[in-house]
């Protein structure tokens, strides 16, 4: 079986391989703890039966000591198990996170379908947590149960072989067959339940998020009726699930009881035959009675393992996702500045079946030239930025850097000469200074201040009570939209790449903030090679060329003066927008 065809979960367990020793200790301690509990009852049975034969006290000494020792060792072993298993699980978590991160860092942001959705990312992160949890609650209990069950059955085999065989069979049924069957039943009904739950959740969203619109449109009763119908469907699905769970709970008790009874019958007849002593009979029966504690955590473990299957599948999907961009084996060194980027007949799409996002674009970014790419949302503007930043490969046409095809260079090298501000620049949950400095870790304080000044952020930063060390909050929540964008602009200016790509720097801002930021960034980029991607039409008289993109096609190009006074898309778009 090759790596790719193995079940997702098994492949992820490879991350646990460096911790084999620790996990084995945990499993052994877990098995030992359960075995101590079983042995406690078995040895106690022996002790009582032997005592009933009224021997001298010394004959019982070993049994008495053993019983007490078992009573103590069980708790201690359990403690050891928990500590080692949690420690190992945390270590696996670290390795998994780093492994996933390295892969995501290669393919982000275009290598995974829907990667840009924050929800999917959040789910991936919790998927990793799921995998570490399943090691403690899913894998180790199974390993411990197998170990402990094996030891128990072997010990019983010394007393009475047929009874040991029966006990082994009973444990196997209760510990493997029942959970497996239950797992299958649960999966089948979960599939049906998932659709019902999804529908219910969607209707809940409607009722909570759209409450006012429902009321304003007099549609409350219709919505409640739909909700009640969806709810009834979920209740029906849950009832089906409950049936599977009930069968499982009953079987677990039934199999254990019948096995003990079988061992008892075999034992009693062996005593009549004289093949088994009356003292070992008590030990054997009580051992069998306690043995089912071994398998009691297994149904829950099976459920946990089944629940994790989809997490594991999502993670392996990321690990297997193909690179969205071609990485050359032996990339040539970076070209010298000045950098001249030339785009010829560029065609791009996000997959072989997807529609064209960019169709036949030519673009010239000679040193010092500023070009604006405008058009309505969905016109393909950001796709052009993704290609220039080497997040995506062109499907047809070429992008050259100083005459050499861009795909010949290493993606990281390309981003050293073409940088700027990606769409929705991210602000990390840290301080203003840290967020700025990531653009150039070794930058001097003066360089930081200068970048902030050019982004018109310096006065604001220095007026803050905590100044440069002000925390920005999750996703920069403590900053206004304009401040976030200016921070991103300062970051781009600090990194100072020869070619600057600014992707929608003013998106989601108020008209006032938008105009001010546009003016400032046109100021700051004067004399720099810049591609400004925007759907904001103010201030474009300053750039050298404007390209209007519509449905991926360049429909108009020229300077503001050319375009504004010529009838066409640009003039039409600016008419009301600048009224």
């Amino acid at each position, binding site marked *: 079986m090759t790596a790719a065809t193995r079940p997702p979960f098994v492949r992820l367990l490879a991350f646990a391989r460096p911790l084999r020793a620790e996990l084995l200790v945990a499993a052994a301690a877990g098995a030992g*703890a359960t075995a101590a509990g079983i042995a406690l009852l078995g040895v106690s049975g022996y002790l009582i039966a032997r005592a009933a034969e009224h021997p001298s006290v010394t004959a019982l000494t070993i049994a008495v000591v053993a019983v007490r020792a078992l009573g103590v060792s069980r708790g201690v072993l359990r403690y050891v198990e928990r500590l080692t298993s949690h420690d190992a699980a945390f270590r696996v978590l670290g390795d998994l996170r780093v492994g996933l991160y390295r892969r995501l860092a290669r393919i982000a942001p275009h290598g995974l379908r829907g990667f840009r959705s924050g929800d999917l990312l959040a789910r991936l992160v919790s998927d990793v947590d799921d995998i570490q949890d399943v090691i403690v609650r899913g894998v180790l209990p199974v390993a411990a149960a197998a170990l402990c069950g094996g030891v128990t059955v072997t010990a019983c085999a010394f007393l009475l072989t047929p009874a040991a065989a029966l006990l082994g069979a009973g444990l196997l049924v209760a510990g493997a067959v029942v959970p497996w069957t239950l797992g299958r039943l649960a999966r089948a009904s979960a599939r049906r339940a998932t659709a019902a739950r999804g529908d219910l959740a969607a209707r809940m969203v409607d009722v909570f998020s759209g409450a006012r619109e429902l009321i304003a449109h007099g549609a409350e009763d219709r919505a409640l009726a739909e909700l009640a119908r969806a709810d009834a469907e979920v209740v029906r699905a849950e009832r089906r699930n409950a049936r599977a769970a009930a069968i499982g709970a009953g079987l677990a008790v039934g199999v254990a009881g019948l096995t003990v009874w079988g061992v008892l019958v075999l034992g009693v007849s062996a005593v009549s035959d004289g093949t088994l002593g009356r003292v070992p009979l008590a030990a054997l029966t009580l051992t069998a009675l306690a043995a089912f504690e071994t398998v009691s955590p297994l149904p829950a473990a099976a459920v946990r393992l089944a629940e994790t299957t989809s997490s594991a599948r999502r993670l392996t999907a990321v690990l297997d996702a193909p690179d969205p961009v071609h990485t050359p084996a032996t990339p040539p060194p970076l070209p010298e500045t000045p950098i001249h980027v030339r785009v010829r007949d560029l065609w791009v799409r996000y997959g072989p079946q997807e529609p064209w996002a960019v169709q036949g674009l030519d673009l010239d970014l000679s040193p010092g030239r500023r070009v604006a790419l405008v058009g309505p949302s969905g016109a393909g503007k950001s796709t052009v930025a993704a290609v220039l930043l080497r997040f995506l490969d062109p499907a047809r046409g070429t992008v050259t850097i100083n005459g050499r095809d861009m795909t010949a260079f290493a993606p990281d090298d390309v981003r050293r000469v073409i940088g700027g501000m990606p769409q929705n620049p991210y602000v990390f949950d840290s301080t203003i200074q840290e967020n700025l400095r990531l653009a150039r870790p070794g930058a001097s304080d003066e360089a930081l201040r200068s970048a902030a000044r050019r982004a018109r952020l310096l006065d604001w930063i220095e007026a803050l009570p905590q100044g440069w060390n002000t925390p920005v909050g999750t996703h920069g929540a403590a900053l206004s939209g304009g401040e976030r964008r200016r921070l991103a602009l300062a970051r781009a200016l600090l990194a100072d790449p020869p070619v600057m790509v600014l992707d929608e720097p003013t998106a989601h801002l108020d008209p006032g903030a938008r105009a001010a930021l546009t003016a400032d960034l046109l100021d700051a980029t004067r004399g720099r090679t810049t591609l400004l991607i925007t759907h904001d039409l103010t201030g474009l008289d300053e750039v050298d060329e404007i390209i209007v993109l519509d449905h991926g096609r360049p429909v108009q190009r020229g300077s503001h003066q050319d375009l504004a006074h010529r009838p066409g898309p640009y003039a039409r778009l600016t008419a009301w927008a600048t009224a």
Partner: protein
Amino acid sequence: MKPVDPRLLREAAPARRFLAGTVLLGAVTTALVVMQAVLLAHVLAAAFDGTVATAALIGLPAVVAARTLVAAGGESLATRASSLVKSRLRSRLAGRSLHTGGTADARPGDLVTLATRGLDALDPYFARYLPQLVLAIITPVAVLVVVARADLTSALVMAVTLPLIPVFMILVGLHTRARTERQWNLLERLGGHFLDVVQGLPTLKVFGRAQAQAAVIADVTAAHRRATMRTLRVAFLSALVLELLATLSVALVAVEVGLRLLDGGLPYETALLVLILAPEVYLPLRNVGAQFHASMEGATAAGRALDLLGDRPSDGHRSAPSIPARIPREPAQALWLSHVTVRYPDRTSPALDDVSLAVEPGERLVVIGPSGAGKSTLLAVILRFTRPESGDTGFAATPAADWRREIAWVPQDPHLFTGTVADNIRLGHPDADDAALRHAAALAGAASFIEALPEGYLTPVGENGSRLSSGQRRRIALARAFLRDAPILLLDEPTAHLDGIGAAELHDTLEHLMAGRTVVMVTHDHRWTGSADRVARLDAGRLTIGAPLEGELMTTAPLKVLS
């Protein structure tokens, strides 16, 4: 955290017969466990004396069969109880939301999580914790009585050690819970750090910082592991103490019984019975402890839901009885507010401060003002979602549902409901025929993209319209308003967050929609003042009609100043 939330049990009233069944089955289980022990001890004792207790041997499988049925029945009853309670809480939460118009006390996303995954965590509460709690009370007492009748000394040993388990559970739990919780919060924050880095990957890549972060992630996780393990070493002590108590107690009983057997002070069968029953005394208490934390998540969620439901429902959108009824007028003429003040409970300054306003039929009023000035509150008053603290309105006497029938409202961020595109456009006019539907969509400039969808008007929109762009969602909301065709039109920031291009595209459609209707538009986009009959300005809750506007705004708008 209380072991049982009485409100939750009250909420479980319709499921009470299931819960009663759970208790009953708990009692039957205990009886069967004791019976099984008695039969086992009898068979073993008979074998010891060289005889075969045939009757007991035949009786055992019958007891096992009964236990099987009871276990299955208990599981099924508990799950059904849980299912019923969840369904009831869900429908009450939904009813409350549609009654109050989704007040500001909870974010919709949180409510959805609470009503679905949050309440699902009630399953372990009903299916595991409550039955175990019942068993934890019934079984030890019943078994102790049985043991006491057989052998008082052993019963005394158990009776002394048994209460130590809950006592230690509570003591150790109190000591470690706060620390453990802190640690888990830290873990959550750590997950947050990882998520933060992953979400910012495109930015990190642009600056060539992506690979360097891998080492940071490894370091942070390792540091957290060391800190957590320090806490867990203490936290797991609780489990250690409980295990020790339970197993040592069994060991104690075994040795004590064995030594008394040696003296001949105790019959073998009695000794066996005591030994078999000894673990059964401690088991339910340990189980209930194990289930306690797993089930508390659900109990917490249910508690939160009950807190919300326990609130006195805000009756903002119902007709206000305190305002005297007046002669009904034509609705559009009733669109006036007189000295209206609105104050939200947790704010000091009022959201609307002594606002007076009358909108004539067919008039177009544009209300401008910065964010937080009270623009949305003004619309909420007109829509009757918010009841003024003082002041009078022209529509107070009309039943809210009747009044709203006169209004088409296009919210700032329209919600798209589960269902087809057609269902969504028909929201305010469910009986509209297909021709009317298509006409409204065409007027809203939505027909072309709707017809390009795989199933046209019958395409499901996906969760909150996820397959449509925000511009397309806005156009669906406009189609809704065209189809509703109401005399009054309320527009909330129709071009907010739209760039020049998007706003220009929407402008013509909106002009068409506003034509011939009484319009109140709130916006901070000053471009709209040009086509308004009157402009009002809202600032910090105070409304000034036709007041002069500052700076560049004056240059664009030919204001029709009235007062």
